[in-house]
């Protein structure tokens, strides 16, 4: 549910990012088949969906993992937000207790924005991410 909510949010800004020359990538941690099914379900055939089944990138970035990040009280608030927006939980396709995050990286590798989710459903404001990305695209 949270993944769908987050992807739908970025999907709505994908054209704006593309026009500025910013590439948008989604990375999960299931099998490639799960990634392909998710890409089709979210109707984002033009956007790369990658997967990291061993979660090496998650570990490298220090993204949270564990039941406490799923059972935290704040998750109920985030779930209410997502459900109110019409999103529903699908079958978990990957690690159920892994959290994610967002990076905005300039050409060459300089990170200009980073966000690590503290709990399930804790996402950075998309406007904030897009603003940083558009700034990163300026010559």
């Amino acid at each position, binding site marked *: 549910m949270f993944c769908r909510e987050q992807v739908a949010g970025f999907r709505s800004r994908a054209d704006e990012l593309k026009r500025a020359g910013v590439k948008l990538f989604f990375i999960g*941690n299931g099998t*490639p088949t799960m990634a392909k099914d998710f890409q089709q379900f979210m109707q984002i055939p033009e956007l790369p969906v990658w997967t990291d089944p061993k979660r090496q*990138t998650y570990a490298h970035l220090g993204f949270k993992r564990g039941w406490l990040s799923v059972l935290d009280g704040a998750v109920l608030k985030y779930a209410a937000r997502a459900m109110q927006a019409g999103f529903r939980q699908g079958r978990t396709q990957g690690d159920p207790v892994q959290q*994610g995050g967002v990076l905005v*990286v300039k050409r060459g590798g300089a990170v200009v924005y980073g966000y690590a989710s503290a709990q*399930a459903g804790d996402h950075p404001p998309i406007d904030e991410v897009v603003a940083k990305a558009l700034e990163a695209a300026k010559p």
Partner: protein
Amino acid sequence: MTPDTTGLAPLTVLTVDGAPVTVGSAWSEGPAVLVWLRHFG
């Protein structure tokens, strides 16, 4: 968080077709937004 991407760039992930690709290829030609999801659900 503002991690150094030097160690991140060479790590390999898989495309939907199972082809390996380095994470650093995302920003090799221009800026990129990378969204790590909890899972595909």
